[in-house]
């Protein structure tokens, strides 16, 4: 990290910490919270999709499992929401290991892996719809009980800081991973799996680690969602909407970069908000918008916004990674 990058990062952090003082509007704070939440989950997706090159279309499986784990235990046993964070991470991570074991064990790659993750999320959605303890199609309402100990805040500022903490933690995890042995091995698997095996990389174990970490981080995203909105149902938790939004954030931002998902989340949600203002609240409009955006990004800007920023900052064409 250069001096200039460090200063820029510090400045952004100070601005981010002061944002709730300047922004009084609940709407705009909520907007920022969504951006931060999806940035954190986009980074989780990026560990599996961007670094390890395994595209998942079913991250809702981890999001929903984290959300249901903390909600069900909170309602049934009065589990403290802050402890629920750990439970959600463990639940999301376990679901990741389970799906990873079943898919990687049988060598599923590329579009086959993408499809199987989508299928797992759909199966979980249907199970959540039928099971009793998930509240079925009606969903689960978490009891209102305002207090910091209960992770319920009177205004949006409290939630904003929790979401900011999640995003920062995710950046830290991605940054550490990029400079670790696992990071180097995941990049090798993404580029050429056979060559990686020849160099002693246990590709199965590495991919399992990636999906486990990614699942745990996404489970934490589900934990935040449940305690923020105090309501979840099978469609929200396990529906394809959340899966697509998570992967779009990472792809739009830039695969395999630390800050890409943050840029992606800002751009995606700003553009989404703008589209809604211009064209009204037609149901399904956002999905059409996401689809078009995905095609445009993959065709015209495969290295995402982070690639654009990199080219813009180093016009000479240096090869150092951001």
């Amino acid at each position, binding site marked *: 990290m250069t001096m200039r990058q460090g200063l820029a990062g510090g400045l952004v952090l100070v601005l981010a910490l002061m944002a709730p003082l300047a922004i009084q509007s609940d709407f705009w704070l909520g907007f920022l919270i969504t951006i931060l939440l999806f940035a954190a989950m986009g980074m989780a997706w990026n560990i599996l999709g961007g670094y390890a090159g395994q595209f998942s279309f079913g991250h809702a499986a981890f999001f929903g499992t984290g959300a249901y784990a903390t909600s069900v235990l909170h309602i049934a046993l009065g589990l403290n929401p802050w402890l629920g964070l750990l439970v959600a991470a463990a639940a999301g991570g376990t679901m990741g290991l389970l799906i990873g074991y079943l898919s990687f064990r049988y060598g599923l790659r590329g579009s086959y892996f993408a499809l199987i993750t989508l299928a797992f999320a759909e199966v979980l959605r249907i199970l959540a719809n039928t099971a009793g303890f998930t509240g079925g199609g009606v969903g689960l309402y978490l009891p209102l009980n305002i207090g910091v100990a209960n992770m319920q805040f009177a205004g949006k500022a409290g939630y904003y800081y929790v979401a900011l903490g999640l995003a920062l933690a995710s950046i830290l995890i991605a940054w550490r991973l990029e*400079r*670790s*042995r696992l990071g*180097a*091995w995941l*990049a*090798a698997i*993404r*580029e*050429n799996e*056979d*060559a*990686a*095996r*020849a*160099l*002693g*990389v*246990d*590709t199965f174990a590495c991919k399992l680690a990636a999906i486990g970490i990614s699942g745990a981080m996404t489970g934490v995203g589900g934990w935040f969602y449940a305690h923020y909105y105090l309501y979840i149902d099978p469609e929200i938790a396990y529906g394809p909407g959340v899966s697509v939004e998570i992967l779009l954030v990472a792809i739009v931002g830039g695969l395999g970069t630390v800050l890409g998902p943050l840029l992606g989340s800002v751009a995606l949600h700003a553009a989404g908000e703008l589209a809604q203002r211009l064209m009204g609240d037609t149901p399904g409009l956002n999905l059409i918008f996401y689809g078009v955006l995905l095609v445009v990004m993959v065709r015209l800007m495969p290295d995402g916004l982070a690639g654009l920023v990199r080219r813009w900052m180093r016009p000479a064409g240096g*090869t*150092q990674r951001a």
Partner: protein
Amino acid sequence: MLEVNAVTKSFGGLAAVAAASLRVAEGGIVALIGPNGAGKTTLFAAISGFVAPDNGQILFNGAAITGLAPHLICRRGIVRTFQIVQPFGGLTVRENIVVGAHLRHAGRRKALMRAEEVARRVGLGELLDRPASALTVAGRKRLELARALATAPRLLLLDEVMAGLNPAEIDEIVRIIRDIRASGVTVFLIEHVMQAVVSLADYVYVLNQGEIIAQGSVSEIAAMPNVIEAYLGHGAAARMTTGAAGAVQ
């Protein structure tokens, strides 16, 4: 050091390798030669764990490694390169070599140091920050070699590292391979460039249609009629001897 005992591997009824046996002694350079399609690469793939032999046994330092996964074989000290180079195209030269270096060094700092050291050894020291995809053919061959060396192997399997290189580049790789052997690594190589085989190999095995048809020193091999026939066709050896006799007369 390496012992291959009657290894057989068939693909759909066609025996790519048929009961092949060979030994590679520690500290030497052994070559495996033979015409195209003889099964050389399949034999390498069996030794390095990429294909499981149907029959036979492979021993490394006395322990059976038959059918082990590639990464486990690599951990024991056998590393292969690929005939068709397989660079991690989206990564830099440095990042490519670090992947291999991490096998013995968990820490990033040590792995980076090791990668730079290996890069200098094979002449890639100036190109560390280039993307691997921007390298020339000769550069990619060296990268293949560097990544393998970074895993600190005891036995290096080189699959045609000289194919497609010009004579000056071949001389350079020959020098690097000698240097690798001098550092205590045993080398087992598949090669079509005979100039390199002649100047490097202590011992040569000839594989034809999956079977080892000859073995010996380079000069012994070159005189064997069945080796000449394997390369030039049935009756070639006889024609060559009569031709030589005619020339003398």
